[in-house]
């Protein structure tokens, strides 16, 4: 049984102009030890997918139209808020984008870590080392800070968030997310607000933590480079659909979906001569009145009439590599 299994998830968001169909049948399966990159551009629904797993999307104006989110067998959409609170921090950890606003500035870092540890320990006391209780939680907090690479963890545990740099704060947040020993970690753009050199370190840290704790990770990002470096698998999203998913090497070296293909060709790497970068014409569709059938069809050079008839189902091209496209790109061919 997969750790996390999202099946045919449909989400609508109500706004002034109408109801936007923001998630259009998401299928995703995450096992322990897998790091899934959930990648896409602005408005594709990747953050909403991640937030949905933790049930952090405010329920009106959001409305889950159909589908289920199975975590260890239980459908999270059917749980009460109290039951979800029991899961958050303890079995499902989350890291958000901005380390500055996600730490409470008036509490010491140690206090915040201990709070999370104690809450998780209520469900599973074995998390805490020897004396248990508050002393054990504090010992665990020092351990975690050390593990995430904060130098002099025992000395710095009583510092306030503003005494840490941006990269350090993100490490603290990772410690906070992992201290409850979650089985699943959702990281929403964890390095976007950080400098490039710091970003590399944080990603390395995440990989090390995954190796040590054996969790499943959903890493939400818009940066394909980050996905290539850190993830084992990738799911590419466009306008509420997962258009391609599979092992990261396969998808990124031989992309089958025209969108993935276009995305990769839009990245300025060192090999691209000036003027040769291919942008993607057109704009993201309006999700209140989405185009019929495949939502990428209006911008796709390979689209035919069949593409607008219905949303293409995900077809397996190779074991583990699925594409939601009627005319996938074959290796060697031009898009």
């Amino acid at each position, binding site marked *: 049984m997969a750790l996390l299994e999202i099946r045919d998830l449909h989400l609508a968001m109500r706004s002034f102009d109408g109801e936007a169909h923001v998630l259009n049948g998401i299928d995703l399966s995450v096992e322990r030890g897998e790091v899934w990159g959930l990648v896409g551009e*602005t408005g594709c629904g990747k953050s909403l997918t991640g937030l949905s797993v933790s049930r952090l999307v405010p329920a009106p104006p959001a409305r889950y139209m159909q589908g289920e989110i199975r975590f260890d067998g239980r459908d999270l959409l059917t749980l009460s808020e109290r039951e979800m609170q029991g899961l958050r921090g303890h079995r499902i950890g989350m890291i958000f984008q901005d380390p500055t606003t996600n730490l409470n500035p008036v509490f010491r870092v140690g206090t915040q870590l201990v709070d999370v540890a104690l809450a998780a320990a209520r469900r599973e006391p074995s998390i805490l080392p020897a004396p248990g209780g508050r002393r054990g939680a504090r010992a665990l907090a020092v351990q975690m800070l050390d593990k995430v690479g904060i130098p002099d963890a025992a000395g710095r545990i009583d510092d306030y968030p503003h005494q840490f740099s941006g990269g350090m704060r993100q490490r603290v947040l990772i410690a906070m997310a992992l201290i409850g020993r979650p089985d699943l970690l959702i990281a929403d753009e964890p390095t976007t607000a950080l400098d*490039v050199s710091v970003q590399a370190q944080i990603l390395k840290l995440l990989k090390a933590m995954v190796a040590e704790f054996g969790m499943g990770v959903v890493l939400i990002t818009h940066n394909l*480079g980050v996905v*290539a470096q850190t993830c084992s698998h990738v799911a590419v999203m466009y306008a509420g659909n997962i258009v391609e998913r599979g092992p990261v090497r396969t998808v990124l070296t031989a992309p089958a979906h025209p969108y993935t293909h276009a995305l990769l060709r839009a990245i*300025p790497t060192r090999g691209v001569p000036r003027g040769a*970068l291919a942008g993607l014409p057109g704009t993201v569709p309006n999700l209140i009145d989405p185009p019929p059938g495949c939502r990428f069809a209006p911008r796709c050079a390979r689209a035919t009439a069949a593409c607008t008839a219905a949303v293409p189902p995900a077809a397996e091209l190779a074991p583990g590599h699925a594409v939601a496209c009627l005319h996938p790109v074959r290796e060697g061919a031009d898009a």
Partner: protein
Amino acid sequence: MPDPMLEIERVTKVFPGQRGMFATSAPVTALEDVSLGVAKGESFGLVGESGSGKTTLTRCILQLDAPTSGRIRFEGEDLATLTPAALRALRARIQIVFQDPFASLNPRMSVHDIVTEPMLIHARTLGLGRRQRTERAAEILSLVGLGPQHLHRYPHEFSGGQRQRICIARALAPGPSLVLLDEPTSALDVSVQAQVLNLLIDLQRRLGLTYFFISHDLGVIHYVCDRVALILRGRIVEEGETQALFAAPESEYARSLIAAMPEVRFP
């Protein structure tokens, strides 16, 4: 370099300490002995991370802040010696595009007003009447890939990429020769970034612009810039032709930056 368009000579900028209640904080040296030269018509890149001093440098070039020591020359003239009137006229010739397309447009102004404002401010030098300004605004909008039908819309009606195009249009309105670009595509999606970068390259060719391009993204710098300098903690660490520098970086910083860039590349 013979006749550089922009010459930054040993510029140092020190911000005095803040007077707190109990103590004065230490002064901050944002720029230290920075020297650069940008030739006419070239695309010069500046790579730096947060806190490196790149923003301070742009503010000094724009004369929004004055350097503590050192000189900045534009087309041969020392900017510090300009009269207020001459400084105002200068602002027609040096323009800037900022990083955040959402915050750099006044939400209460229509696109027409945003793009014609620079022409209005410099009406005396440009000599454009009201009707001419509106026509020119329409022209510039077409140049950046928008249309006259967008003139009477407001910023919030546009996407990030379109807003950045409006910012570019505003920068081009007074007919500048030097355009500073402070992370112009960092806030944009990858596919949109590609379009805007291609637009910038095209505009440079068509209008004969000189670019001072700041970015932390080495891929973007490599795509757009002829020469590049790296700035770390207020000091220039390395400088040279883009291709050469990337192929054989000399400084430790350059090497670590190149290594840290997440690329879609598998061993």
